[in-house]
Structure formats: structure tokens, C-alpha cells
């Protein structure tokens, strides 16, 4: 087990390196000169040249890359062209709203999905059919369309939840939570349905395994078999799906944060791409990659914790 985790960490390093390199290349390909965006249209050639020297853009690409990489290794990802904040600061500010949104929505999707998916699998019959159909529809609803609908209904018409904005959790945990409900619902509905479907399939699979018969023959109460044995086994593939759902959520935040005007990483990415704020774009892409790798690591860890066959291999 320890070897397995160590192995994963060892693979994570080159992966991050490749992602960092790709993100550097990607932003260099953006057409147009950042200096023009920063200085505006009336800048003189001298001003632009001075800024180029300032930002290091006059150096060869390879030198720029190496110096950026060197900085990144020390945690220095450069300075935003636009705001003057270091990339670290900018990303740090944007990190909390995004991670709040992603964790909250995934957590709700996981808990509700496990309960409902497990319930319909054991119960079967008409409820099973109905929930399956609903989950199929839920899976097909585009999050941005749903977001608009939720805003219309709960923010504009009923005025229960705020339509936009974000309150940091240390200011007011309640407002933090209330502010996240609509975006988390919009972004989590697909994942929730995914977890329902996966849990259902997984529970049905476990119910067909021989050990269920053994436990029944041993005389364990049905409830105990379901909660202690079946759900535990069924949760293993669900963990993997939840990890993927979390990553999917990270992709979705760009759209959802734009709709709810959440000052998160999605919005930061969108605005920095638009304003040619290259260091920030690189920093955000890198942070996304770190998050994805971290999530995969954690979901592997949880799966191993649940499944001794993985743990002891």
C-alpha cells in the first residue's frame, strides 16, 4: 500500500512538470502582445519596449520558460500583469470560493446519491423505475441552463437565495452556505444523478454476489447485511466515480462562476485570459492540475481504505 502511494506521488511529479510546460506553451501561443493590453492603444514604442524588459518578454522563450519554471519550484509563479498582485496571492483569493463550491456540491451529491441509489437498488419496483428515469433526465440538464432557472425561481421570484456573489466562510458561515446553495445545486445535479446511477448499479452487482447468500444463511438480519456489508462493498466503485465527478465539477466552475459572479478560479481564468494576464493563466492551470492530481490521490486512498484487496496488494 505504502509503495502504491509512493509510486503515485512519483508519477505526479513528472505529470505536473508536463502540465506546467504545456501551460507555458499554451499561453505563449495567445496572439497579441500583452504589453499592448496593459499600456493601452496610445503607448509609444519606447514604453512597450521598457515594459517588455520589465516583464522579461524580450528574453528568448527558453530563458523565460526556465526562469518561470525555476520560480515555480520555489512557489513563485510571477506577478499579474494587470493587478500587480503576485500570482500566488491572486490564486489564493480565488481558491476558497471554487473549492467551497466544488467540495460542497460533490459532498451533497455523494451523500444523497448513495442514499437514494442504494435505496432504489434494494427496493426495486416502481420507485426504482421512476428514480432511474428522473436521474436520466437530471443527467441531461445543462448546468448553465439550470443555473439560470434556479436564479429566476429562487433569487428573482422568491428571493430566498442571493443571485450572485460569495461570502467568505470566516465572515459568516451561514451566508457562505446560503450563497453557495444555488451554484452548488446547478453544478452538482449532474454529479448527483451520476452517483445515484452508479450506486444503484453497484449495489445490484454486490447483491448478486455469493457472500450475500452466505450472510443470509448465517442468519444476519437483512438490515445489517445491507448497511454493513452490501453498502460497504458497493461504495468502492462509487468512490472512483465521485473523484471523477469532482474533477468534472472543477471544469464546470468556469461557467457557473460566470453566471453567479463568484470570485473563484473559473472567473479568474476567464478574466485573465481575456486580459492577456499570462502569468495568472499559467498559475490557474497549474493549480487545477494540482487539484486534479490531489483528488485522484485521495480517491485512491479512500478506495484502498474501503477495499482490503487494494490495500494489501
Amino acid at each position, binding site marked *: 500500500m505504502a509503495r502504491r502511494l509512493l509510486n503515485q506521488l512519483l508519477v505526479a511529479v*513528472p505529470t505536473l512538470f508536463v502540465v506546467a510546460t504545456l501551460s507555458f506553451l499554451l499561453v505563449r501561443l*495567445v*496572439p497579441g502582445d500583452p504589453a499592448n493590453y496593459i499600456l493601452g492603444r496610445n503607448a509609444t514604442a519606447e514604453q512597450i519596449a521598457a515594459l517588455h524588459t520589465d516583464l522579461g518578454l524580450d528574453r528568448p522563450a527558453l530563458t523565460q520558460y526556465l526562469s518561470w519554471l525555476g520560480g515555480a519550484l520555489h512557489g513563485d509563479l510571477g506577478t499579474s500583469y494587470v493587478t500587480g498582485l503576485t500570482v500566488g496571492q491572486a490564486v489564493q483569493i480565488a481558491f476558497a470560493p471554487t473549492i467551497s463550491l466544488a467540495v460542497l456540491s460533490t459532498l451533497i451529491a455523494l451523500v444523497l446519491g448513495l442514499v437514494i441509489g442504494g435505496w432504489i437498488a434494494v427496493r426495486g419496483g416502481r420507485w426504482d423505475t421512476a428514480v432511474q428515469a428522473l436521474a*436520466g433526465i437530471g443527467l441531461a440538464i445543462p448546468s448553465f441552463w439550470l443555473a439560470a432557472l434556479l436564479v*429566476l425561481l429562487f433569487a428573482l421570484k422568491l428571493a430566498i437565495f442571493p443571485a450572485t456573489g460569495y461570502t467568505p466562510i470566516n465572515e459568516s458561515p451561514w451566508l457562505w452556505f446560503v450563497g453557495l446553495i444555488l451554484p452548488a445545486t446547478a453544478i452538482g445535479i449532474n454529479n448527483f444523478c451520476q452517483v445515484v446511477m452508479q450506486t444503484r448499479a453497484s449495489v445490484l452487482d454486490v447483491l448478486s454476489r455469493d457472500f450475500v447468500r452466505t450472510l443470509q444463511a448465517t442468519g444476519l438480519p437483512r438490515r445489517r447485511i445491507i448497511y454493513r456489508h452490501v453498502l460497504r462493498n458497493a461504495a468502492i466503485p462509487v468512490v472512483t466515480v465521485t473523484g471523477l465527478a469532482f474533477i468534472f465539477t472543477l471544469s464546470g466552475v468556469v461557467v457557473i462562476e460566470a453566471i453567479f459572479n463568484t470570485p473563484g478560479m473559473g472567473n479568474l481564468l476567464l478574466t485573465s*485570459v481575456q486580459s492577456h494576464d499570462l502569468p495568472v493563466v499559467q498559475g490557474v492551470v497549474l493549480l487545477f492540475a494540482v487539484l486534479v492530481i490531489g483528488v485522484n490521490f485521495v480517491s485512491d486512498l479512500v478506495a484502498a481504505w474501503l477495499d482490503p484487496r487494494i490495500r494489501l496488494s
Partner: protein
Amino acid sequence: MSATPEGLGSPLRAALLRVLRRPSVLISLGWLFLITAGTAGAGFLAPYDPLDQDLNATLALPSGAHWLGTDDLGRDLLSRLLHGGGGVLAGALEAVVVAVVIGVPAGLFIGYVGGIADRLGNFVTNVMFAVPAFVVLLTVAFITENDIPAIMGVLGVMMSGGLTRLIRASTQSARDLLYVDAARVADLPRTRILRRHILPNVTGPLLVQTFFLFSVAFVILTSLSFLGLGFSPETPNWGQMVLEATQRLGTSPWLMVPIGGVLIFTVLALNHLGSALRDALPQAERSSLLLPRPSSRTRNRAEPRAQKADRAEATGERSAAADVLLAVDGLTVSVGDLTLVDGVSLTLRRGGVLGLVGESGCGKTMTALALAGLVPPPVRVGSRSMRFDGTDVRALTPVQRERLRGREIGLVSQEPMVALDPCFTVGATLVEALRLHRRLSRSDARTEALTLLRQVGIAAAETVYGSYPHQLSGGMAQRVCIALALTGRPKLLIADEPTTALDVTIQAEILDLLRAVQDEFGTTIIIVTHDLGVVADLCTDVAVMYAGQVIESGTVDQVLADPAHPYTRGLLAATPDLRVPGERLRTIAGTVPVPAEWPAHCRFANRCPHAQDGCTTGPILLELVTSTPDGPAAGPNPAAGRGEHEHASRCRRTHELEKVE
């Protein structure tokens, strides 16, 4: 899996045909056709120019002139929908094509070759997974200044990672199929093996995945265009139409409806096609083993009046004698119209070992599970009477019936390696059962579990106690299963082919263990087996089953020394340990008919060397065999007076044949 080595094998074609019969699939296909044709023919199908503004009719609700209403500039929504789909649909298609073109060959290659190529491929897909696709697409959209083909190409590349993994996994499992091995040994060219033998096995999962990928690409593309990226703002487009609708959200929410419906239906149709096809692909069909909640189950009523033919063997109250542990009469197991076990009657003395013997598909296991109360719906179990330890089982409430399991009747199943919950240690499983049955404290339960493990012949009890099932050998796991079955100190232990899955050398040990259990605890045992050698070795009584019926029963001495039924004789002649030395080992020609084809007359007649015309005219009863051929029982037998030791056979020629041989 029974995949055929040839081309787009019939399993896939059969799955496709099966899927196409489902109405929901036809509706999905119809919808996709509708939007494809609609957007392709938007030029002359659309009632208006999508850009035509009618400022007298802005934000109109559906009407005869504008079927779906108009937007804030008075543009016809239906026309905009028709014109706005082409871009996203074509874009999504492009991404899927790119993903398939990259992912399939890459997956086939690394899956087939393995080694370094595999590790490298794995690393690349890991990198692709580490970057959220949307982040890259956003950047690409800016770099290329909203060049849709380029954006979708990049999306295709990013999606190819997942596809590569899927194809790699399918390829690896196909690579290990026997006929692929054979092709490799035969030195066929690698490309030919990949194309002819492996690709067909990959096609099913690929087709399924293609639908899902298309739906993902479609959603991503509409999200992009919702953000104002990718498509020109002048021409209509589905993502943008959502954006326009959200801007008028407060005043005219109707705008959200048509575009929302189109998006949801499209994704729904794509997902549905994918999952319908996935469900239709050939796969091991396994049904739930979970029994229903006892409160929701009605009383264990008799099957609607079992066959009259078997009425003669009703044993009545007589078998309730004190030394009889189990007496079941007319046990029937059925699913739908299909009868799997047809009127089986058994009587079991306390401390006896009954062998339930027959070929596969004769209903032995079903009988055993039905006796243990372990057959979940939709399979139904019925009987004319069932008495266990002096109680009428059929009169018990469901909850009382449930209490028999584990405490009165234990089970040892066929495949020990999968019979234990893989997530719990042997110790945890035993302790859980012991605490339930004997109300022990945690530490007492631990001591007792270790004692039990030693009792079933496990010397390294401490080690096994802390082990997980996957760390045990088959024989060890079976010993643990026997220990688990003994936790409730059952009076009856049902062992369902307990040695079939084990190595030959281990089989004898497990049989010895069962014998020891019988000796030590006085447990009565029913052992299901296809091996008459096991019966001779272990049992006191035997019931031979064929096609859902008991065709011969009696004590082991009676049946093995003097078999009355031609089927029993055939089995004996085919058992290496029991045949007469020097005689050739024989086989019984033909196979057991499937339940749907069980005839009303003698079920063995078509395989029987002694069958006559008379054997196929009507049902055959189980009749007593008397040791003297000229005895009084030549006619139909008044079986009601029969005791549990009597030798019975279901053959109308029993007595003639005895004379013959």
C-alpha cells in the same frame, strides 16, 4: 463470455437488434434524426430568416405565426433553433471523430503490446486527465480566436485519453481469450490479429462510449458558446440562445423553454442510446440474492395444488416421528411458468447424511437452497408439507421462518472464494455471527471464533483470524465457511457441492471435516454433489435427482449396491471409484433437458437404454422397490405407508429390469 472469433459477431448484432425493438430507443433515434435533419435542412425548413427582426412582435409567446414565439428582437425562435443546431452538432461530431481516430488505435496498440508502450500511454492519459478540459478549451478559444474546428479538435484529443483507457482495457481482456492465444501461436500477423480477433470484442464498448462522448462534447460546446466563445454572435447558436434567454429571464422566462427542451432532449437521447446499448450487450446475467423483508412476505403457501400424480407419495404426519429432523413433501420451486424442482419429497433422520445427487441442471442446488429458505423472488417455493424438528415450517410466521436460518439450518456453499465478504477479516465475520447467535462479549466471541477455527482444522487459527478472504486458499476459505455455518449451532447443515471448486487433494480433507462435524456435533447434513463417490464415502442416505424430480431414493447401501433406476445405474457406471473393476468406464449419452422441455412422461426416457413405448405415455410415480423381485409390490404402490428408509424408484420397469439383469 461467449464471444465469437468472427467479425462483427452475432452477439453485437443481436444486441443492436434487441435495442432497436425498444420504443424509448426508437424515440431517441427519432429525436436525433429530427434535429439532424432539421438543422441540416434549416435553409428551407425554417419559416423565417433567423435574423429577421419583427419589432412589432418582440418576446411573443407561441402563436400561429411564430410556433415557438419570438425573442427580444422579434426573431422567430423556431427558425433560430433550426439554424442554431448545425454548429454545435457538427462540432461535437468532430470532437468524437478525433477522439475515436486517436483513442482506438492507441488503445489497441498499448493494450496489445503492453510493456513500456503501455506505461508510456498510461502516463500520457494521466497528463490529459490532470488538466480540466474546459480550462484548456477556454485558452484555445482565445488563441485561435474562436476557431471551432480547432477547439473541437483539441477537445477530441483530450477526450481520446479516456477512450484509450477503455479500449486498452477491452483489448487486454480480449488478448487473453483462448482463440486469440491460438491465433498468436499460429503466428498470424499482428495487424490481422488486432483487426480480425480483437477489434470485434472492442466494438461493443466503443459504440456505447461513442454516444456518451458525443453527449459530453455537445454539452461542452454549448457551454462554450453560452460563455460567448467559439461562435460568432451574429449567427444563432444553441448555447448563445440560452445566454440570450437568461438576459431576459425576469421578464420573459418562456425563452428558456424551447432551447432548454432541445438541449435536454438531445443529451437525454444520446445518453439513453448509450446505456440501452450497454445493457443489451452480452454480459453475465446475475440477479439479486437478497431475500425480501420478512414482513412484506406472505405466508409460505403451498403451490396451487401440486400434481395429482405425486399425491400417492404424501407421507402425512407419520414422518413427524421424533427421530426425523426434516420431512418435506412435494417441494416445488418455480419461476414464472417454469418449474425447476417438481414435487420433491425427502425425509431425513437426525444425525443422518443425505446425498442429493445428479448431473448439473437437475435441480439439486435449487432444492437445497429452497430447504434453507434462501431462494429470493421471483423464484417461488411451495410444498404440500414441510416439517423441521417437529414444527410445521409452513405455519411459521415469516419472522419465525427467518430465525431458522443460521440457527437451525446452516449453509456451506459451492465457491468458498466468493462466499465471504471481501471487506471483512475472517475474525470480524465470525465475531459478528457469534455475537448475534450467542450474545457473547467481544472478547469471548474472539476466543470462541479461534476455537471454532481450530475445530474446523485450521492450525494457524490466529493468522487466519486476521486474514481477509482473498488471502486464503480455497480449502482454507471452505473451512472458514464451515466454521461460519457452525456459529449458530445449526441442527441441519446443507452443503451445496462443497468440494467442486477445490483441488482434488483438498476435496478429501473437506469431506473428512464434514464427517468430523457430523460426529462431533451430531449435525445432520445434506450434501449436494454430482459425485456418487462422495455419496459412498460420506452419506447414509441418498436421493438421486433427474430433471427436477427425485428418481431414486433410499439408504446408500440399498441404492448403490442395488440401483433400481436406469439413470442411477448410468451414474454408477460413470463413477470411476464405484464401477466394477475391469469394466469400461461408461457415460450416459445425451444431456439433461432444460426445464422448459421436461416431458409429462418419464423424463429420462430419451436417454434411457431400456425405454419402451409405455415409458412415454404418462407420468411415472416414485414406487417402492422390494428386494424380492416376486414380491407383492409389482403394481402401483401404496406409498403412503412408506417409511424413510425405504428404497424407491421412479421407473415403470423397475421390477422387469431387475429380472433382466
